[in-house]
């Protein structure tokens, strides 16, 4: 029996991601969720603008590429036009939490029956490591060379905390791809986010903390450590909203 292998929903193509970048792990978890639910033939993926722009090469699925930040709007159009398909977006932090904030918030507020995989690595990767809305206070990037400064740049956007304030979303969770334990939890969360859509429950978003060794200027190993020591304390892991788990008896 083969216990661990490339999911069927993924192609045989080798990714263009840098060594140790955890995008690859997150791709695999998405593929495993699609395999587990048996939805490959009716799933449509939407790649963002950012490092994952070429994600359509890596999945055995009908796919498109949205303009920067617009993936939730494209997903809305696809899903509304064809409700029996399973539609997911795969977006980075610049894409979702900066330029595409409005599209993400309003898709959530409408309770669109879609799945969003939100990859937060606290930096713009594709363009070479600029400050992201999720860059940590003090974090040195190409456009915050003296460290992210609160007086000038404010403080990071916490997407899960923010979206969980909305009434409509079904499921909002933050996981991390930095350890065996956390990857297993991420796998469960991502599968749940897809299952919710299959069951027609509505908007599900899983934020996955991911590494960017290249633009963090760290080895892959040190990047995992930095995530544990610096990123996770700022972005606490957990389920921020799960309407299926809410006890509705308020008497």
């Amino acid at each position, binding site marked *: 029996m*083969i216990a*661990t292998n490339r999911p069927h929903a993924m192609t045989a193509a080798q*990714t263009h991601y840098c060594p140790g970048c955890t995008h690859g792990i997150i791709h695999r978890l998405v593929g495993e969720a699609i395999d587990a639910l048996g939805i490959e033939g009716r799933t449509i993926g939407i790649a963002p603008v950012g490092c994952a722009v070429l994600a359509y090469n890596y999945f055995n699925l009908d796919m498109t590429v949205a303009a920067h930040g617009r993936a939730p709007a494209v997903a809305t159009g696809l899903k509304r036009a064809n409700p029996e398909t399973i539609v997911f977006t795969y977006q980075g932090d610049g894409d979702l939490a900066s330029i595409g904030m409005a599209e993400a918030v309003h898709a959530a507020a409408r309770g669109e029956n879609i799945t969003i995989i939100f990859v937060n690595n606290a930096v713009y990767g594709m363009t070479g490591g600029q400050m992201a809305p999720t860059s940590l206070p003090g974090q040195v990037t190409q456009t915050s060379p003296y460290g992210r400064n609160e007086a000038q740049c404010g403080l990071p956007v916490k997407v899960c905390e923010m979206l969980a304030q909305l009434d409509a979303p079904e499921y909002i969770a933050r996981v991390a791809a930095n350890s*065996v334990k956390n990857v*297993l939890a991420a796998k469960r969360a991502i599968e749940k986010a897809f299952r919710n859509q299959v069951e027609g429950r509505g908007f599900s978003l899983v934020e996955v903390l991911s590494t960017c060794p290249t633009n963090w200027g760290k080895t892959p190993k040190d990047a995992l450590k930095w995530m544990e020591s610096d990123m996770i304390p700022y972005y606490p892991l957990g389920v921020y909203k799960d309407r299926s788990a809410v006890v509705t008896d308020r008497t």
Partner: protein
Amino acid sequence: MAKLTIQAENCKGCGLCVDACPKKILRIDADVINHKGHAPAQMTDESRCTGCGFCALMCPDCVITLER
């Protein structure tokens, strides 16, 4: 008995599997270079592999296959 296969040619040598392995039986051999120019992960002692799959779980490139 677990059988671990590493597709060395597609490995990017990031070493995440090395750190994930509880038995510490994976390593990066800097003297071996694959066609991508990376030093791939290698199994050092197959007899001690328990088949836990942690290495494959942490591999970003799907190059580790585990049969058990």
